[in-house]
C-alpha cells in the first residue's frame, strides 16, 4: 500500500491540534475551521478505508510499518481489519460531530479544539495499531486531553470530582494492563511487540490464565466493566458536550477494543478460562446500569448510566467467544458509539438552552427544538434495541452468542432491554413532550444548522445500519473470522 492513509488518519488530527496551538488565541474562526477541516478530512479518509477494504482478501490491510526502536522490537506498525475499520469510521465521525457541536465554545477555543484533536489522534492510533507498544502509547496519549477538557470546560459543579475520578480510574486500569503487556512481551521471548507475532507466541496455559485477567481487566475499565464502571457516569456528566460524546462514543470503545485486541486475541486460553466471569460482569453491567439509569433525575446521568448498560452487552458479546457474539459486539460498538454521541449531543443542546439538566424542570421541548427531539427519540429507540435501528441488529447476535454459552445470561440481560425502554420513554416524554415551562417559552431557541447536520447524519446512519445490517456485518464478520481463528470455536 503506497499511500499512507492510516497514518494520515492518525496524524491529521495531531497536526491540526499542533497547528491550532500555534495560532493566536483570538483567531477563533481559523481555529474552528482547521479543527473541522481535519475532522471532515479524516472522515473522508475513513470512508475511503471502509470502502477500499478488500473483504475477499480479509486480514490486515492498509498496512504500514516503520522501525521505531528495533532494539526492543518496537515498530510503528499500523493496519486495519474488519473489526477495526468500523471503529476508525466511528472515531472520525464522532470527532467531526464533536467539533461541529462545539462550534459555539467561547472559552479558550484554541486549547479546546486542540486538545480535542489530540484525543482524536489517540483513539485512531489505538484502532490502527498492530504493535502492542504503539497501541499502548496511543492509548495513554488520551490521558491529558480527557482530563483537562473535563477539568477546564466541564460543568462547574462536578468537574473537579468527575475529571479526577475518570482520569485516575482509567489510568489505573491502563497501567495495570501495562504490567500485563510487559509480562507478555518477556514471556514471548521474541523481543517484539508485533501483535501478529505475539498471536502465535504460544504462551503457556498457566501464563494465559494468570495474565488474561490483568490485561483484560485493565483495559475493560475504560470499557466500563462492572464494578469499575463508576467513572463513566460521573465523568460523562462532568464533561463538556463534545467530550461526553467522544468519551462515551469512542473512548469506551477504545477500552473494549484494546481488551479484545490484546487480552482476548493474544491470550485466548485465558479468555476461555475467564469467560464466565466476564459474562456475569457484563450481565450485571446491563441490568444494573439500566436500573440505575431508571432512577436518575439528571438528564445527563440517565445517558451516562445507559452507556454502562450498553457496554455490558459488548462485554457479553466478547465473552461468548462465538461468531454471533463477537459480531454483535462489533456492531454494538459502532452502534452504541453513534447512539450515545447523539444522546450526549442532544443533552448538550438542551442544557445550553435551558441551563438545567433536571428532568423535572424540563418539558415540551419538542415544540422548540424538533430536530433535536427527533434525534433523541431515534437514539432512544436504538438504545431500546428497537428493530429497524442499529441497536437491534447489534444486540440480537449478542444474545444469540449468549444462548450458545449460557442461556441464563441472555434471559437476565434481556431484562435490561425492557428497563431501558422504560427509562428512555420516561425521559423522552418528560423532556420533549408535555407542557413547556413558561421560562423556556422565550429563552429556548431552535438548534443551529450545524447541530442539525450532526443530528441528521447520525440518525441516518443508525437507521441505515438497522435496515441494511449487511453494510457493516460483512466487514465485521471478516474481522470476527480472524479472532475466531485465534480463539478457536465456531
Amino acid at each position, binding site marked *: 500500500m503506497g499511500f499512507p492513509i492510516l497514518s494520515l488518519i492518525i496524524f491529521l488530527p495531531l497536526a491540526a491540534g499542533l497547528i491550532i496551538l500555534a495560532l493566536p488565541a483570538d483567531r477563533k474562526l481559523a481555529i474552528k475551521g482547521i479543527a473541522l477541516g481535519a475532522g471532515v478530512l479524516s472522515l473522508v479518509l475513513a470512508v475511503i478505508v471502509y470502502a477500499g477494504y478488500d473483504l475477499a482478501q480479509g486480514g490486515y490491510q492498509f498496512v504500514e510499518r516503520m522501525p521505531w*526502536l528495533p*532494539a526492543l522490537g518496537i515498530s510503528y506498525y499500523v493496519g486495519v481489519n474488519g473489526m477495526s475499520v468500523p471503529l476508525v469510521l466511528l472515531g472520525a465521525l464522532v470527532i467531526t460531530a464533536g467539533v461541529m457541536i462545539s462550534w459555539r465554545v467561547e472559552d479558550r477555543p484554541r486549547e479546546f479544539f486542540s486538545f480535542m484533536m489530540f484525543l482524536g489522534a489517540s483513539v485512531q492510533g489505538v484502532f490502527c495499531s498492530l504493535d502492542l507498544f504503539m497501541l499502548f*502509547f496511543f492509548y495513554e496519549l488520551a490521558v491529558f486531553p480527557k482530563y483537562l477538557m473535563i477539568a477546564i470546560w466541564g460543568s462547574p459543579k462536578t468537574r473537579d470530582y468527575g475529571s479526577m475520578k475518570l482520569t485516575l480510574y482509567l489510568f*489505573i486500569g491502563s497501567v495495570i494492563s*501495562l*504490567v500485563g503487556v510487559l509480562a507478555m512481551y518477556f514471556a514471548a521471548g521474541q523481543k517484539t511487540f508485533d501483535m501478529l507475532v505475539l498471536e502465535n507466541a504460544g504462551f503457556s496455559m498457566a501464563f494465559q490464565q494468570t495474565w488474561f485477567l490483568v490485561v483484560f481487566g485493565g483495559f475493560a475499565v475504560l470499557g466500563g466493566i462492572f464494578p469499575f464502571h463508576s467513572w463513566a457516569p460521573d465523568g460523562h456528566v462532568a464533561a463538556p458536550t463534545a467530550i461526553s460524546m467522544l468519551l462515551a462514543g469512542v473512548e469506551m470503545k477504545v477500552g473494549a477494543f484494546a481488551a479484545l485486541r490484546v487480552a482476548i486475541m493474544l491470550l485466548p486460553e485465558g479468555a476461555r478460562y475467564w469467560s464466565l466471569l466476564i459474562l456475569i460482569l457484563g450481565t450485571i453491567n446491563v441490568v444494573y446500569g439500566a436500573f440505575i439509569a431508571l432512577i436518575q433525575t439528571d438528564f445527563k446521568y440517565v445517558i451516562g448510566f445507559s452507556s454502562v448498560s450498553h457496554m455490558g452487552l459488548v462485554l457479553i458479546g466478547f465473552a461468548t467467544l462465538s461468531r454471533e457474539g463477537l459480531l454483535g459486539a462489533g456492531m454494538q460498538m459502532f452502534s452504541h458509539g453513534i447512539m450515545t454521541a447523539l444522546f450526549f449531543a442532544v443533552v448538550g443542546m438542551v442544557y445550553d438552552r435551558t441551563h438545567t439538566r433536571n428532568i423535572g424542570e424540563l418539558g415540551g421541548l419538542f415544540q422548540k427544538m424538533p430536530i433535536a427531539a427527533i434525534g433523541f427519540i431515534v437514539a432512544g429507540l436504538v438504545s431500546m434495541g428497537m428493530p429497524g435501528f442499529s441497536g437491534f441488529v447489534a444486540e440480537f447476535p449478542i444474545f444469540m452468542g449468549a444462548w450458545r454459552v449460557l442461556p441464563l445470561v441472555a434471559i437476565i440481560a434481556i431484562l435490561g432491554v425492557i428497563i431501558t425502554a422504560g427509562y428512555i420513554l420516561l425521559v423522552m416524554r418528560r423532556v420533549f413532550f408535555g407542557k413547556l415551562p413558561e421560562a423556556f417559552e422565550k429563552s429556548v431557541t431552535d438548534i443551529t444548522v450545524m447541530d442539525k447536520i450532526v443530528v441528521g447524519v447520525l440518525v441516518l446512519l443508525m437507521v441505515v445500519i438497522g435496515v441494511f445490517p449487511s453494510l457493516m456485518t460483512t466487514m465485521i464478520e471478516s474481522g470476527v473470522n480472524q479472532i475466531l481463528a485465534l480463539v478457536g470455536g465456531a
Partner: protein
Amino acid sequence: MTGAFELSMIPAVLPEIMLILLAVLVLVLDLVYRDRENSALGWITAIGLLVAAGLGVAFSRPASEPVLLFGGMLRQDWLTFTFRLIFMVGAALTALVGTEKSGKHLGEYYLLLIISTLGMSLMASSANLIMLYLAIETTSIPLYILAGFKVTDQKSVEAGIKYLLFGAMTSAVMLYGFSLLWGFSGTTSLYELADALKAGSAPPVLMGGLALLVLVGFGFKVSAAPLHFWAPDVYEGAPTPVAGFLSTASKAAGFAVLARVLLAVFPDSLPFWTVVIAVLATVSMILGNVLALVQRNIKRLLAYSSIAQAGYILVGVAAGNELGVTGVVYYLASYLVTNLAAFGIVWLVGRQVGSDDLDAYAGLGKRNPAVALAMLLALLSLGGVPPLSGFFGKLLVFGAAVQAGQFWLAFVGVITSVIGLYYYLTVMKIMYRPGTDEQPLPMTPAWRTALLACVAGMIFLGVAFAPWYGWATAAAGSLF
C-alpha cells in the same frame, strides 16, 4: 597495573579539562566585569558546558571494551559517557534558567555549578574508592553552598545547613563502609574488590552489611526513602534552579555510582541487595507519592515527587539486569529535562508572583499559555504519560522488573504512579483555573531557550527512543 598515565588518555578526560578551564574563565570574567551587567556569564557557562559535552561526544567516546585510566582511578566506558552528557546538559540548562540580568556573587554561583558538575562527571567515571569519595565530595561541597546561596534568605540558609549536616553524616557512614571494604580486601579498586573479597572469603552477612553502609551514602544522594528527609526542606529553601539541579543531575550522579558499585563490587550478593533496593524503591514510591498529595507548596510537592521518582528509578536498579540499568539511564535523562523544565517554571512564577504556593499558578493558562503548556507537558512526563519521555522511562524500569520476575514491584510502581498522576493533575487544573492576575510573566531569552530545550528533550525522548536508548543500552552493557 593497567592504565598508567599515557598522553593518549587526555582525550578521555577532555570534557573535565574543559570544565576546569571554564571554571577559571568564569572566575576571571567575574573579577573583570564585577559590578556590571553580567547576564552574559550565564550564557558563557551554559555554552561552555555544552562545548564540554560536545567534546565528550566527539573525543571521549569509549572503545568497545571499557578502559581503566590513570592508574585505575577512572574508567572510560559508556556509563561514564552517558552520565557525563546528562550532568553537563543539566548544568547548562540550570545555568540558563537562573540567569539574572544582575545579581550579587553570580560568578561564584556559576563557578560552584561548574565545579559540582566536574565532581559528578568524575563520580560517574570513578573506578576507585578513593577517587569516588573525592568525586562525591567535590560534587557535594559546592552544592551545600549553592543550597544556602541566598544568604539573606533564612530558608535558604537553613536549607544549606540541613543539606550539609545530612550530607556530611551520610558521607561519613559511607566512608566507613569504604574503609571496611578496603580493610577486608586490601584494594580500593572497584573492579578488583569483588574478586578480592571473594578470595578473602568474607562472610555473606558482612558483605550485606558493607553494601548497606555504602548504600546509605548513595541513598542520600538519590534522596531515596528513608534517607529523603532533607529533600523537601532543602528544595523549598534552596534557590529554585539549584533545587532543580539537586533533584536531577545530583540524583543522576548518585544513581551512576549506585549502579556501578553494586554491580561491580557486590555481584555475588545480588539476590540480597536487589531485595534491599526493591524495598527502598517501594518505600520511596509510596512515601513520596502519598506525602506529595498533601503539599500546598509546589517546591515541596516536587521534592516529594522527586523522592517518588527516585523510587521508580530504583525499580530499574532492583531488577539487577541490563534492561534495568538501561531504564535507569533513560529515565534519568528524561527526568533531567522534565524536572528542570518544571523547576524552571517554578522559578519564573516564584520570582514574579513571589510565592511558591500552588495558588500562585492559578490563571497561568491565561497569562502565559505557552508556559502553562510547557508545565503541563512536564507534569505529564513526570506522571508517565506518552508521548513524553517519562512514559518510556517508566516502561523500561517496570519492564525490567517484570523481566526479573518482580511483578509485585511493577504493580506497586504502576499503582503509585496513579497517585502521582493525581497531584500532577491537580497542579495542571489549577493552572487552567482563572487567576487574579492576568499580566503575562516576563521571561529572559536564556530562560526561554532553556525551557524550549527541555520541552524539546521531553518530546524527543518520548517519541524517538532509538538514539538515547542505544547509548543507554551501551551504558548498561558496560556494567555487566
